[in-house]
């Protein structure tokens, strides 16, 4: 669809009723897709991958939240049980409303899922009466009350069929009567519990926990405490505390910043009615780390992101929103884009399937392969005859491709375990030369040959200074990481590592032999040291000491240590080369970071300015093309007006502006510059000018001002 607008942006198109049903998701995907022949297959691959990623992340999130959700459930259960106890301590607290302060972090959009699973769990195992409210739907106390009542009584309707009629009646009454108060809720709750007590086995979800509490609590979840109007919240709590004896209420506050907001929002008279317990959830950076660990750093998903795209996604997370959900959305976008724009992505799937798909490639696809940068590089290295074969013989190419695909999968199989090993070795070094988080190391490895970087060298140096027990512990962990790997190379590496570990351990037993005369060599320069107090001198002697010690015969431990580190180094060199060096990497790696950035981190102001500065870019009209960055005088009025306004200061004289505009437009009309009415303002030009100026005002570049008559104020700075 097209618009007549100058600027790029979102436009609302009301869909016509007919079109609505015809387009499915797949049609959308196939429409405008590169290489339409195998697009359906690609769509299916993409869909399957996304479904898998989605379920995996959901499982992951549930696991991450399990701890905190479990403790919250325990808390609610405990509350109900203490309420029924009649011992002194719980009686003294009977007037307090039990409250859980759940600190979730500033990534508010991510919390929805947590709350959803929380209320599901609560309904399943503790109480059917759960209502969650959001700040934006509760501007006033009235609304909050209404929402709470609706949700509590409304959920009850679905529990049981025989109660439905009655519940409907009450809800009808609720709607009829103007005011809903908590006393209504009390009555409703009493009838509800009485009924279930008198033995109608109403509740279907009777869990083993249920037989204890006869009075399930009424849980109200405030999803975003900060956004609530404090006044409303205070009043609501005051009202609730009046009913606490009749109604076992319980609150859960979802807090984004810090628990002290409770004190900021509630005065003592209100907070003294609450019995607050604090629950802290996992921080979002940890959350991200797990998601990356399970989703990105695994060979399980054939789809990969290249370094730049990863960088964009991670920096959006760290710099802008801390939202894991958005990160996953970003991966989804990259996934879609990859399958949509790269015809060869048909090979981006499990190994067996990919090998099958290679055989089904047609000539066009094979040409595409020949045009791949990585493949060209590969061809150049081959023998001349082989080169010719690769470039002309399709069947031969297919065979080679199968081999290459296998290689690529092998590369992935080896890459991740070795990456993890390197990370375990370097993550505890002082000042973290290769990053604290594995994602940093992964980014380095994606960009370039990690072993050529300075940081890697310094990390290796530091590793060479490790004490024996530290080194053994680290190597031990490395073997644990390599254990589950199946590839041959890794297995042999594992065997070698274990050998070395065994040797290290043997050292202990052999260590009984007298230590070499290191002490002498150390003590003698130490004597020198005591004399010299100058810093430079000290450094020098220390260096000398180092040298002399190095030239000394190495102890068996040192020999073994160097051997082990060299082995690690060789592993890194053979397996951690960046994916760009792999042949056919374009099949699996999505590389267009600009697209991702443009979609996820939009720059509205810049695109408006780009549109005004170079209308050609959007209008695709050859007449508007200019070389030196100036605006052609045939450009739309608003572009001319914009360009002229850039030359002005903070205040713009409207009349001068109009004159200048008229001159430019006259030139565009092809009027003779020497004629009398050149640059004259006629009514049409005046009207066009006024319209353009008001458009600029609408876009927020100028505004009317009272400082000077016939002037407008500029709202942006800079210009020509």
């Amino acid at each position, binding site marked *: 669809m097209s618009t007549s607008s100058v600027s790029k942006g979102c436009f609302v198109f009301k869909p016509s009723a007919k079109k609505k049903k015809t387009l499915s998701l797949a049609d959308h995907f196939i429409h405008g897709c590169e290489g339409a022949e195998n697009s359906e297959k690609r769509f299916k691959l993409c869909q399957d991958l996304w479904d898998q990623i989605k379920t995996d992340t959901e499982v992951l999130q549930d696991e991450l939240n399990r701890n905190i959700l479990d403790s919250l459930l325990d808390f609610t259960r405990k509350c109900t049980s203490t309420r029924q106890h009649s011992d002194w301590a719980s009686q003294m607290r009977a007037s307090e409303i039990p409250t859980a302060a759940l600190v979730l972090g500033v990534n508010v959009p991510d919390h929805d899922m947590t709350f959803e699973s929380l209320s599901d769990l609560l309904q399943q195992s503790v109480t059917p009466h759960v209502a969650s409210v959001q700040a934006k739907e509760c501007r006033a106390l009235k609304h909050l009350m209404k929402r709470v009542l609706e949700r509590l009584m409304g959920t009850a309707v679905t529990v049981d069929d025989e109660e439905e009629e009655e519940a409907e009646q009450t809800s009808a009454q609720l709607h009829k009567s103007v005011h809903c108060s*908590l006393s209504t809720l009390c009555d409703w709750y009493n009838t509800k519990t009485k009924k279930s007590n008198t033995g109608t086995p109403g509740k279907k979800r009777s869990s083993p926990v249920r037989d204890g509490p006869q009075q399930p609590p009424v849980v109200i979840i405030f999803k975003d405490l900060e956004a609530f109007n404090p006044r409303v919240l205070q009043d609501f709590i005051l009202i609730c505390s009046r009913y606490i004896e009749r109604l076992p209420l319980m609150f859960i506050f979802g807090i984004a910043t*810090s628990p002290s907001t409770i004190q900021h929002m509630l005065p003592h*008279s209100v907070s003294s009615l609450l019995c607050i*317990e604090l629950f802290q959830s996992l921080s979002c950076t940890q959350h991200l780390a797990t998601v990356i660990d399970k989703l990105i750093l695994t060979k399980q998903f054939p789809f990969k992101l290249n370094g730049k795209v990863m960088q964009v996604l991670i920096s959006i997370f760290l710099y802008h929103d*801390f939202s894991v959900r958005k990160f996953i959305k970003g991966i989804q976008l990259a996934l879609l884009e990859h399958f949509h724009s790269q015809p060869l992505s048909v090979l981006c799937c499990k190994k067996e399937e990919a090998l099958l798909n290679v055989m089904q490639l047609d000539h066009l696809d094979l040409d595409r392969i020949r045009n791949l940068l990585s493949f060209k590089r590969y061809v150049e290295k081959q023998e001349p005859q082989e080169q010719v074969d690769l470039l002309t013989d399709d069947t031969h190419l297919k065979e080679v491709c199968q081999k290459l695909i296998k290689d690529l999968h092998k590369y992935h199989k080896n890459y991740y375990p070795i990456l993890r090993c390197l990370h375990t070795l370097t993550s505890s070094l002082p000042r973290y030369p290769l990053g604290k988080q594995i994602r940093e190391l992964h980014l380095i490895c994606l960009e370039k040959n990690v072993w050529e970087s300075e940081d890697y060298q310094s990390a290796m140096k530091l590793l060479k200074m490790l004490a024996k027990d530290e080194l053994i512990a680290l190597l031990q962990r490395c073997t644990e990481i390599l254990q589950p790997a199946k590839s041959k190379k890794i297995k042999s590496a594992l065997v070698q590592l274990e050998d070395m570990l065994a040797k290290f351990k043997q050292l202990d037993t052999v260590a009984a032999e007298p230590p070499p005369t290191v002490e002498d060599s150390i003590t003698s320069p130490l004597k020198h040291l005591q004399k010299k107090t100058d810093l430079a001198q000290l450094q020098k002697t220390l260096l000398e000491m180092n040298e002399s010690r190095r030239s000394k015969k190495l102890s068996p431990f040192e020999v073994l240590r160097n051997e082990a580190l060299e082995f690690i180094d060789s592993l890194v060199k053979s397996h951690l080369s960046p994916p760009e060096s792999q042949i056919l990497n374009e099949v699996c790696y999505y590389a267009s970071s600009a697209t991702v950035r443009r979609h996820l981190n939009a720059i509205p102001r810049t695109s408006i300015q780009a549109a005004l500065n170079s209308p050609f870019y959007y209008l695709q009209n050859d007449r508007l093309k200019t070389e030196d960055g100036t605006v052609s005088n045939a450009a739309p009025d608003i572009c001319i007006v914009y360009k002229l306004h850039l030359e002005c200061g903070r205040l713009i004289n409207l009349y001068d502006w109009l004159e200048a505009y008229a001159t430019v437009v006259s030139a565009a009309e092809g009027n003779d510059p020497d004629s009398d009415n050149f640059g004259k303002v006629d009514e049409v030009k005046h009207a066009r000018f006024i319209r353009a100026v008001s458009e600029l005002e609408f876009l927020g570049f100028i505004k009317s001002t009272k400082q000077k008559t016939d002037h407008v104020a500029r709202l942006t700075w800079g210009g020509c």
Partner: protein
Amino acid sequence: MAALLQHPGYEEERLQRVAEQLPCREVQTGMLLSLMGQPHHYSYPSIFIYGHRASGKSHVMHVLLKELELPHATVSCVECVSVALLFEQVLLSFFGCDAASLLPRSASLSDFVRIYRQQCSQSPAKQTRYIVMEKAELLRDTDANLLPALLRLQELVEDNVTIILLSEIVWDKFRPNTGCFEPLLLHFPDYSKGELQKILSQDRPPSYSDEFYSSYINILLGVFYSVCRDLRELRHLAALNFSKFCEPLEEGKVKETDTHKLWRNIEPHLKKAMQTVYLREVSSVQWEQMQQMEEKENGALRGLSAHTHVELPYYSKFLLIAAYLASYNPARTDKRFFLKHHGKIKKTNFLKKNEKTSNHLLGPKPFPLDRLLAIFYSVVDSRVAPTASIFSQISSLVTLQLLTQVSHDDQLDAPKYKCAVSMDFICAISRTVNFEIVKYLYDFL
């Protein structure tokens, strides 16, 4: 003491029960009883009772009306989001739900009076009816005619009805400027130390003797009375610390009578609890857990206020810093702080502060969005594109209450904000991004 509560028209037994439930409020109860007169007498139309929090206002009224079985309606004004709700509750408790359902939608005062009179003619009052309004100060915010009308409701409905208003503030703050019927004023004074001791001692747990518990209360009051006289808070503290107090007893180390040893044992804990009086930082359960923890490792007390650390995205931190600078620096000094070549402004000249007071004492000042962004771009160390998410971060800072929007929500053009975080908070934030905020603050120049 029971003698005080003798009053004709009520059964001796019931008065006795009332007196038992209302320790230390005999004078006020007696006064109220005599104001109320005998059940069938007409009573004074309106009574205004005021006193601090937890001075027994609602409790006294509740016990009196309940034990003497007088017809009454208790309404909390917080709960009445609309006046209609108030009317409904009154009618409901006097005449049953049939009467309440007669009220039309969005009932007005005259509707209420009409229905009340109608109902009242069917079932006239044999005894005085009482309407108790808790938190009456909220009545001032409702319709202007409501309070004066309630004060002379007796006249309006021609029934034996008395309004009792309970409030924490004095009557002078209520009086409408158009004047009204003056209610009888009754003050509930704060409890004295002795009275507190007596009341608190009544909460004795059943398994301990009276003397033991009252000695505990004595110790508790000795520590806390100087900082806290709120009965409710003291009761909370008593419940919180009692298990600790009993600990040596249960271990069998001391006898109940050995007050001195018990005192030595509990004193440090009470001192610790002193730091968090009124804060209600932790739930009672957590408090107990914390005490156990502290015994193992002598860690610092960590309540709600100890968790002030907030994790924010990188640019949000800088936005917040920029907002803080914009709020606490005068706009004319921006040039000096954020321009590389600000020219030779002589420091002495520049520092001539025409406002003598520190900006931090005056509190944050509002600033426009433009200024916030200008400062943001100059403090953040890399080039930042003005993306949509920068702007959305500003609005999420507003919902997190770290910034407040000063101008109205609807104002899209040049919105104004204030920074709502403390100096300590911003210092902690800027430390995490290696930004020396103190160098950029006019007050600390």
